[in-house]
Each structure stands twice: as C-alpha cells, then as structure tokens.
C-alpha cells in the first residue's frame, strides 16, 4: 500500500513526474548508448588485430650494439616448444622504377609459405620464385601496377605475381606500401640483415612461455634481443579504449546529474506542498521512518520507470550509433551490451533515490504539530 500511496502522489503532479522520468531516461539512455557504442568500437578495432594476438616480435637491441638478429638465434627460437613458425624479416628501403616513375619503396624479404599464411592476394596468386614479387595494394594503386607488370628494383627486373588485399593497421609488418621478394632475390639487391623476427605461437597460452624461453636462452648474458608480446600492445590499446569509453560515459552522466537535480527539486516542492498531509499522517501514527519510506518510494518509482525506458532506448540508441558510425549495427548485440543496460538501469535508479534522500529526510523531520498547522 505504501507503493500505492507513493504512486498516487506522483499521479497528483503528473506533468512534473513525467518530466522527472524524461530527465532520468535521457540520462540513462545517453550513458547506456555511449557505453554500448564504445564497446562496439573497441570490438570493431580489435578485430583487425585478431590474427596478430599470438605473435611475439623480436628485434635486435641497438643499445647493446646489435643491429640485426643473428641466424643462430633465429634457429634457437625456432626450436622452442610451442613455436609454430619464426618468420625472419629482412627489409630495406630501395629504389623502385616503373615506367617513368622512380620512388623509394620498402622491400621485405619473405618466404613464400609464410607470406601465404599471413596475407591474402587480391589479384593474381602469391608466388615468390626468383624474378617474381608481390606488391601491396596501395603501392599497386599508386603506381598503377597490374599482374605481370615489370618493375625494376635496384636495377633488377621483377614481375608482379600478385597484389595483396589491403590490410588494416599492423604492428609487425605493413605490406600495403611495400614490395615482397624472395630471400634469394633480396640478397642480390640488398645487404640488410634480419631486422625483425615474427614468432607465431601454436596458441595464445604458449606466448608467455615462449617469451620466457627466448629471454633465458638468448638474453641470458646481455639483452641482445628486444622481445615484444603483441598481446601486451593489444592490451594497452584495449585499455585505452576502455578509458575513452569511461570518459564519454562520464560526460553522458552529466545529463543524469541534471535529472537528479530536477528530482531533488520536484520532491522538495512536493514536501512543502504536502506539509499538512505529512502532519496528518504523523498525527495518526506514522513514524518518521514511514514518511521517509513514502518519499523514497516515490523517488524510486520515478527512477525505475525512467531507467527502464532509458535502458530499452539505450539499446536502440546503441544500434543506431553503431549503424551510423561503424556501418554495422550487429556490434551492439554482444554480451557487454547487457552489462551497459544493467549499468544504466542501476545508475538511473540510484540517482533518483539519492536525489530523493534529502527531500525525504526533510519531510520526515517535520514536527507533527507544525506540519498540521500548515496551510
């Protein structure tokens, strides 16, 4: 019956109550929708890095005077249990001529098998026999290269066997603007040694063990190699997204704060208007705690209704923002969305109850005799 009493008090000032509910649901919707979108954005970005998560990248440590990774170290790494492959990369910036254009391009030496494993061809088929090369999508576009085009690298003519698909951002190698050639061809045009080894683990769980093994077997005496887990970098990015999301939600939460203030305001008005009624209730046996309960119930009802509408709309809002920005609304349908809906719901309800505390406390502190005399 206390709920009935509270409900009817809210109905008594319908427009006011509706406005308070609107305030809460806008706030909840803003927090929820931004939370859902932020999570979608993170997932969308992290998807690009999915296939590098089980990689360890090894560089020579220039501070100890190493400018390349030695062959025997590469063989040591290959033998570590859990290592699926160790891709030794030689790279150099070399002059490239095609038709009448002359540019400096990044050139990677790679094994055909590894190349096939890491990238997909957009046109042609990946083949790195002597005299053939594979080019990145952007470079091909820039120079208008086609399959079969003949380019000249440091005076050596190579035939384009394939053009790779555009890959997003990567941390290991980025072939978009590069030419990939076989080890043999590379040795003929450049003296560069191995500048990076990409170590792929059998599974994600093997990564820490492999890193430990490299440190123990190669870096025992001095830090010859720098060993970087991709997972760590990804973790850092993920954390950064989390922080940005939190920041955006905090901004959205300002609208909830405003809603809270409006609830505080209408409830204070309500206590003043209902002074006499509070006096009557106290006279016929309502304890202070009962008055407190009635007012807090009112605030909670406003919060509950507002938050329920708001969290339903936050899903809709999240879907719309995802569609508008990521062009794919299905990102909104993931488990974390449930978390943001529940978060919005609970933050909304607590804001309302918190805002109702002071007016409720004030109402409960009224002296029955003073309240009863109030006109």
């Amino acid at each position, binding site marked *: *019956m*206390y709920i*009935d*009493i509270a409900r*009817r*008090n809210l*109905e*008594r000032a319908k427009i006011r109550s509706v406005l308070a509910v609107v305030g809460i649901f806008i706030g909840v919707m803003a927090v929820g929708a931004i939370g859902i979108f932020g999570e979608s954005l993170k997932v969308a970005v992290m998807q690009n890095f999915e296939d590098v998560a089980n990689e360890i990248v090894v560089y020579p440590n220039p501070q100890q005077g190493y400018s390349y990774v030695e062959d025997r170290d590469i063989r040591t790494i290959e033998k570590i249990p859990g290592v699926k492959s160790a891709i030794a990369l030689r790279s150099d910036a070399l002059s490239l001529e095609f038709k009448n254009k002359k540019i400096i391009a990044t050139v990677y030496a790679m094994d055909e098998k590894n190349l096939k494993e890491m990238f997909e061809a957009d046109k042609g088929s990946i083949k790195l026999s002597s005299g053939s090369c594979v080019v990145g999508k952007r470079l091909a576009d820039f120079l208008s290269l086609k399959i079969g085009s003949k380019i000249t690298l440091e005076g050596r003519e190579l035939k384009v066997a394939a053009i790779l698909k555009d890959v997003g951002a990567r941390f290991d190698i980025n072939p978009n603007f590069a030419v990939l050639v076989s080890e043999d061809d590379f040795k003929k045009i450049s003296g560069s040694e191995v500048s990076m080894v990409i170590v792929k683990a059998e599974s994600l769980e093997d990564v820490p063990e492999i890193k430990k093994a490299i440190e123990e077997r190669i870096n025992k005496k001095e830090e010859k190699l720098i060993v970087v887990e991709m997972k760590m970098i990804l973790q850092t990015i993920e954390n950064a997204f989390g922080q940005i999301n939190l920041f955006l939600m905090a901004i959205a939460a300002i609208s909830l704060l405003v809603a809270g203030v409006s609830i505080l305001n209408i409830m204070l008005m309500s206590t003043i208007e209902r002074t*006499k*009624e509070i006096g*009557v*209730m*106290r*006279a*016929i*046996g*309502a*304890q*202070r705690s*009962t008055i407190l309960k009635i007012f807090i119930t009112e605030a909670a009802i406003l919060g509950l209704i507002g938050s329920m509408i708001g969290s339903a709309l936050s899903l809709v809002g999240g879907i719309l923002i995802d569609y508008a920005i990521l062009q794919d609304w299905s990102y909104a349908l993931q488990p974390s969305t449930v978390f943001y809906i529940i978060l919005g719901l609970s933050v909304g309800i607590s804001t309302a109850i918190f805002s109702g505390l002071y007016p409720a406390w004030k109402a409960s502190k009224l002296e*029955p*005799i003073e309240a*009863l005399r109030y006109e």
Partner: protein
Amino acid sequence: MKIIELIDVQKIYKTQYYEVHALRGISFDVEKGDFLIIMGPSGSGKSTLLHLIGCLDKPSAGKVLINGVETSKLSDFELTNLRRDNIGFIFQQYNLVSTLTALENVELPMLFKGTPKNLRQKRAKELLELVGLEKEIDRRPNELSGGQQQRVAIARALANSPSVLLCDEPTGNLDSKTGEQIMKIIRDLNEEKGVTVVLVTHDVNLKKFGDTVIHLRDGKIQEVEHVH
C-alpha cells in the same frame, strides 16, 4: 481509572517578537468512559490543550499523563506509537489524505501499525459501515460531502481501537443538522463502546452531549460543569 491527567499545565508559544501564554496552569483528570467537553471562545487555548493531550506537542511546564505515563518523558518514536495505538483524532477540517479513497484513509492507521491487508480492509469496511458509508468506500475525499468526510475521519480515528477520541471542533465546518448527526455518532461510540471522548468547541449547543463541561478562557479554567 484516570486515562488522562493534567497537572498545572502551561504552554507558552515563543515567537521572534512576542510570547503567547496560551495555557496558564490547567489541571484536570479524565476517567475512562468520560465524555468531556472543553468549551471556550476562539483563542482561549482549546486546540493547544487538545494537542498536548494528543501527544502532538509538549507542555512548557506541568505534566500531561496518558494512562499514567508522562508524555514529556517519551521519545518521538514512543509518542508516535502512543498516538497510533491509543488516540483517535477528529479535526475541524477533516484532514483526510486527498489521494486515498475512504477505505484507504481508514486503513492508514492500521497500515502504520503493520496490520495485514486483509484484516485491515475488513475492519475498515466495518468501521465505514458503522458510520453509514458502506456505499462510499471507494470515493476520494473530494467526492464526499463535508459530513461524509467527517464520518470517514471518525472511522479512521477508530481504526486501531483507541481508548481516547480527541475532537477539535468536529462540527465547526458543518451545517447544524449534519453536525447533530456527527455528534450522535460520537455520543453512541461513547455510550455503546465506552470510548473516552474529549471534545473542544465554542458551540454552546453541543453542551448537552457531554458528561462534564470545562469552560476555558484566556488559558485558564473558568468553571467545571457536570451535565449528567
């Protein structure tokens, strides 16, 4: 048995600019089952006196005892329970809760006491029947006449079977015929159910309903008149 006992009760209202000596040494007892009328002109201190008896306020000096317990020694919590369980209030302006129906208004004191819903509703219906409002139980106060509202107020006052009914000018806002009906209900409660009644009024026509009439003027007892 003395249900109410006042010993040299004083009440001074202090405002920022002046003091009002509303009661200047009032002493009297009320026995169980009495019908006491306190009569006096406006401003003589009648309402103040009733509020002290009803535990809504505390005296500036002197003692008010309800069932032998001194009210100024009780906490707000205890006073509230005392009001809820032992005292029924009837006001001049009815003071019903406007958002609640007649039935719900009568349920209120029982709700505050924690009486379960079915018992509450059963008793509220019985009480509304007693005051002749069995057909109006679902109406809100603004859908009831003044006399009907006052009956609801009487039913509400009786909800927790109080030992004392305190009435502050219960007929003050009613025409004389309706006022008479209300007075008869209160008298019947006194005579048939043995409810102790303390009623304040400035209307000399109500004198006939009481056993004892105390005449109050300027915060002092002028005369005690035994009618029956």
